[in-house]
């Protein structure tokens, strides 16, 4: 078993195709002589890896304690209202996917979110609306 290469291969697949499909997981499992469940386990453990296809832009709202104490849950609700989707879903036009994540290291700007690789801090529901408008 070549477990130490597993995460690298999953990340590569995610970077190349935007998500890790069942087929890709089966292929990685076969290459590394691992049970497919192990590949699925690692992929589902990380919020920055996805087993389903994602939209053009991915919103990650932080659900860790510092953001939570600064009304992080209200920001998640604002996104749900703005886009009409819940965490784990993608808008029907494929523009946004919405995910919850653990700490993104921006506690000084809590509540914070990531859109793709960009950090947006000190959020308010109004600010979220403005930020999302700038994405096609």
């Amino acid at each position: 078993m070549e477990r130490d290469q597993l995460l690298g291969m999953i990340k590569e697949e995610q970077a190349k195709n935007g998500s890790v499909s069942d087929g890709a997981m089966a292929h990685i499992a076969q290459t590394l002589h691992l049970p497919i469940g192990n590949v699925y386990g690692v992929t589902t453990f990380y919020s920055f890896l996805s087993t389903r296809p994602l939209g053009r832009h991915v919103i990650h709202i932080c659900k860790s304690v510092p953001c939570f104490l600064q009304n992080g849950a209200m920001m998640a609700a604002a996104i749900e209202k703005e886009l009409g989707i819940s965490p784990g879903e993608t808008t029907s036009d494929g523009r946004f996917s919405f995910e919850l994540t653990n700490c993104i290291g921006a506690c000084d700007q809590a509540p914070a979110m990531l859109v793709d690789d960009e950090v947006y801090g000190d959020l308010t529901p109004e600010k979220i609306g403005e930020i999302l408008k700038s994405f096609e």
Partner: protein
Amino acid sequence: MGDVKLIIDGTEVSGPSGMTILEAANETDINIPTLCHRPDLKPEGNCRICVVEVEGSPRLVASCHTPITEGMVINTCTPKALAARKTVVELLIAGHTGPCVTDECAKDCELHYLAAELEVGPPRFQVKARRSYPMETLSPYVQRDMGRCILCRRCVRACTEIAKKNVFSMAYRGFHSKVVVDCDVPLDKEECRDCGICIDYCPTSALTKPNKGVS
């Protein structure tokens, strides 16, 4: 008799290096409760039921996977260790409580046995949304009710280490953690035959033999 000397609950004990605290204790008839550990599986220290106090260590250690070292002084029944064990059982029960509290299976449930033994009182922790999964009845050999699973991983290890089948894996994270088959599909795998080892190793009634349809 081995070469590593230590003291457990005031008794001098010795054992070969590599021996765990739990094994050393058992040799001297000192009983430490366990849940995720079984002597014939590789210890993982998942459940923390077997925690003990080691003098000089700021934290409690899981005796099932901590090796003995020379001069260790261990106390297995301190108030701190007992309180930790109790809380672990309470937390497990909070997420686990399903029909098995009231139905027949409770008497066979190791978790409920431990709760009785450790004198765990009425539930302190309320879970907003219990972990609930549809019953998996596809396989003619093993029926899975993952709402009753306490994530001890004994089935995962028994299937991998003893049956050498690798049917189960751990997936997801935190509260959503789950023992899965492949990409989280209901159990119905070619490799999974009627060995039933996972059922024997399951401490709760999450894994059972189907009542009918065994061909």
